[in-house]
């Protein structure tokens, strides 16, 4: 079809996440038990986290809050663009770490935004806490109740030791609480939060409209081509362009997906984004491993995906279409693609 189209999609909180990451920037972040210090190490890992997060949850959003000196402030607002977050994280390396963090103020700041998020999306807060204390203007247990009633899930990664208030906070809100052992363990724990958390039974599902704009490339030779500014770059300095993604509803121009249309509010995504999000809900079955000799007797000696010769000791068979893959392709299919190419192919053919 030449016209871009919109679809109504059933969505649940595991598909659309709203996550605030709170980064402790208090005095204890200067501790050098992570190299070169806790802050630099954390920010570096956060960049990887943001990348991973948007790779796995393309239609979700993230915001970053920093807390120090008993105050909390937003580094970036809730948004779906990884580049902006990463740029801000890079800038934050020079932050001076002073005073104490405030859990209460950070949570309060986060829920001010999160509470407006619709019910079919998740509301999550991830706190990276280095300090062993928190300086709060009011009773944190009252805040816990509020968080619970708003269905906000709070998870904490501690950089020093187990702190009681964190244990209670995460237990009450259904989040997880881990304390790091070293840098690699820190990375491992952080990456756990890339995957969406298991949904509670009470979470609602709902139908929302989504646009699937097609990418058009205009050429100067085309008489109908009208140069347009990208809506998402209105505030930045990039100039008008001829092509891009046009919203199926209002024809606003965007250079990147996914995005929420600034004019009509429609969520614009591309099909692979949705597929990547869906794989948490419908994971691809593991392929069956078997020794290679068996199959060579049957005459199969090529991998269905890369068409390379099957040289390794074992091969992998898709349980539904019985196609055979080599070990590299098996890893690629399960880690990145999340669907069996052979199955897809046979579906479109029939």
């Amino acid at each position, binding site marked *: 079809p030449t016209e871009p189209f919109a679809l109504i999609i059933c969505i649940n909180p595991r598909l659309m996440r709203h996550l605030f990451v709170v980064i402790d920037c208090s005095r*204890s972040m200067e501790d050098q*038990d992570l190299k070169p210090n806790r802050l630099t190490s954390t920010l570096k890992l956060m960049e990887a986290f943001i990348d991973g997060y948007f790779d796995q949850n393309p239609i979700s959003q993230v915001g970053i809050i920093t807390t120090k000196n008993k105050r909390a402030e937003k580094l970036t607002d809730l948004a779906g663009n990884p580049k902006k977050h990463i740029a801000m994280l890079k800038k934050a390396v020079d932050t001076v770490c002073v005073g104490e963090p405030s*859990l209460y103020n950070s949570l309060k700041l986060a829920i001010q935004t999160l509470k407006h998020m619709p019910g079919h999306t998740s509301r999550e807060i991830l706190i990276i806490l280095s300090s*062993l*204390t*928190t*300086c*709060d203007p009011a*009773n*944190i*247990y009252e805040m816990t109740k509020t968080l619970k009633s708003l269905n906000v899930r709070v998870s904490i990664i*501690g950089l*020093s*030791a*187990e*702190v*009681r*208030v*964190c*244990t209670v906070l995460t237990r009450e809100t259904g989040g997880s609480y*881990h*304390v*790091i*052992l070293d840098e690699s363990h820190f990375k491992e724990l952080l990456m756990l939060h890339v995957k969406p958390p298991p949904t509670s039974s009470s979470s609602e599902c709902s139908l929302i409209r989504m646009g699937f704009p097609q990418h058009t490339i205009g050429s100067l030779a085309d008489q109908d081509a009208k140069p347009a500014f990208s809506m998402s770059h209105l505030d930045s300095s990039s100039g008008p362009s001829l092509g891009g993604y046009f919203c199926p509803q209002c024809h606003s121009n965007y250079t990147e997906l996914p995005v929420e249309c600034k004019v009509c509010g429609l969520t614009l995504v591309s099909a692979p984004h949705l597929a990547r999000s869906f794989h948490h809900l419908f994971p691809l079955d593991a392929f069956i491993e078997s020794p290679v000799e068996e199959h060579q007797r049957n005459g199969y000696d090529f991998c269905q995906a890369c068409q390379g010769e099957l040289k390794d000791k074992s091969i992998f068979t898709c349980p539904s279409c019985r196609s055979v893959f080599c070990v590299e392709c098996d890893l690629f299919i399960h880690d990145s693609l999340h669907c069996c190419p052979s199955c897809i192919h046979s579906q479109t053919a029939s």
Partner: protein
Amino acid sequence: MKLNIEGLLVYFPYDYIYPEQYSYMLELKRTLDAKGHGVLEMPSGTGKTISLLSLIVAYQRAFPLDVTKLIYCSRTVPEIEKVVEELRKLMEFYAKETGERNNFLALALSSRKNLCIHPEILHANIVVYSYHYLLDPKIADLVSKELAKKSVVVFDEAHNIDNVCIDSMSVNITRRTLDRCQNNVDTLQNTIQKIKETDAAKLREEYRRLVEGLKEANVARETDIYLSNPVLPDEILKEAVPGTIRTAEHFVGFLRRFLEYLKSRLRVHHVVQESAPQFLKDIFDKVCIDRKPLRFCAERLQSLLRTLEIADIADFSAVTLISNFATLVSTYSQGFTIIIEPFEDRTPTIANPVLHFSCMDPSIAIKPVFQRFQSVIITSGTLSPLDIYPRILDFRPVTMASFTMTLNTFNVCLCLVALSSKFETREDFAVIRNYGNLLLEMSAVVPDGIVAFFTSYVYMENIVASWYEQGILENIQRNKLIFIETQDAAETSMALEKYQEACENGRGAILLSVARGKVSEGIDFVHHFGRAVIMFGVPYVYTQSRILKARLEYLRDQFQIRENDFLTFDAMRHAAQCVGRAIRGKTDYGLMIFADKRYARADKRGKLPRWIQEHINDGSLNLTVDETVQLSKHFLRQMAQPFRQEDQLGLSLLTLEQLESEEMLQKITQIAHQT
């Protein structure tokens, strides 16, 4: 679960059991079988109470003729409540398993408001109450004297039992006591006068009874109905009350004379120390009071108070105290000393004379208990070295065993920091600063609560003052709030409450307290309330006290215990008590820091309980402050990793099947460390 302990069916109200609990019950059963006494040490938080209760109740059901009653003595009201709670669980389990309503009656004596005087309580199968009901002669006489001989007596948390015994037998007399006593005697005189006018027959009847002597009491003791009372010596039971104090007026006159004599003794200007025979000789020389009437004093007063039908005995506490003193001083020529101090050591200018009649031999108070009951069990988390208790309490146990905690991971990190606080160097500026640095560094790495113990209130005040001057206190306060235990009970409980609040809401706090104080003895710091305990210095008792010196001398002469051995033993049991406050169970974890290099010496280390000693290795000895910080950081991170019950199962937590495996039974026999 139902256990089979050497042929005895024991109902245990939990699904899992710790191996050391099984081992403990095994030893306990053997003690009961032998009808002897036992000393058992098992760390707190391993379910000592329920093991004790399950086994003894099972024993009672199996052999109702051999063991009729369990008398469970604990120290404080909260502890008594805990015992009752466990007992309730056990009873529910019995009801569920056997399907019949049991006819077990348990009784807890805590305070007057819960008092029940129904006669049925005499037949209770289990009695739970405070030590004092059994050890303090004044109370024991009222409460415990009718307890049957075939009872099992358990002293829980008994590491301080010798001090309780001594306190219950010691008498301190001040001017105030004498003044109040004077009033009492006046009241007595007036009452006697009144009764003489209205009901002279009553006094005559009493006189007749006294001539007959204390036959009744004697018969009772010989027929073994009552627990004997150390204030009522055997000899006087066989004799009649001497004529000099037989009539009421004469007795009151006698009391007056005795009182005047005591007053004259308090008018001293220098310290006097003398033995009981010396005191008796002096009193005979000065006011012609013989030994014999003095011995009857306590009993005679009781008789008089009964005759006069005085309802409120509490008003007469002063005169009761004096008469008890009279009886004790004339009965025991050994084991006691009299010290008269004209002023307190700290305030030599203010006259405040005190007569200490101090007991030095804890075995006197507890002797009737050991003699009367067939099994007495002494148990606690800190009883090391085990052999010292039978020596100072003068009894012969059939079992002495120490049990250790079996753990899948080490949830205790023990650090011995090489800092000095010897008496001579402890005022040293550098020592104080080192202590401050240790606390400061720890406050930055330990989450939530830290409890720090000092050796005395005075020392703590000095240190805190210098920390303030050096600015250390200010730096610590950047990490945590600071609370201080004081001698004022209300202030301390307030500080404690706020301390717990600060630990709870993530503010973090440090509690500075004193070994031997209220906090070190009775308060538990579970989980986040005590992630680290720091013991600054070795908590030796104040050795300049004359009472202590007298006691040490007595121990050396009578029990061949060297002064230094006893002092170290006493210091180490208090240190162990202090650091033991933080670990109250298997899921709990904490740092134990002994900040004094003297702890590393073999004589000190050897006197710590076995479950603490096990954690000492080369890596935890003679650490610097920096090393301690690194060790703590690593330990706290390890401990913060998720803990699952499955990890424990089969190793330190057993199901019935696992328990009954041959291999496990082998292992269990090694847990008990016999001495």
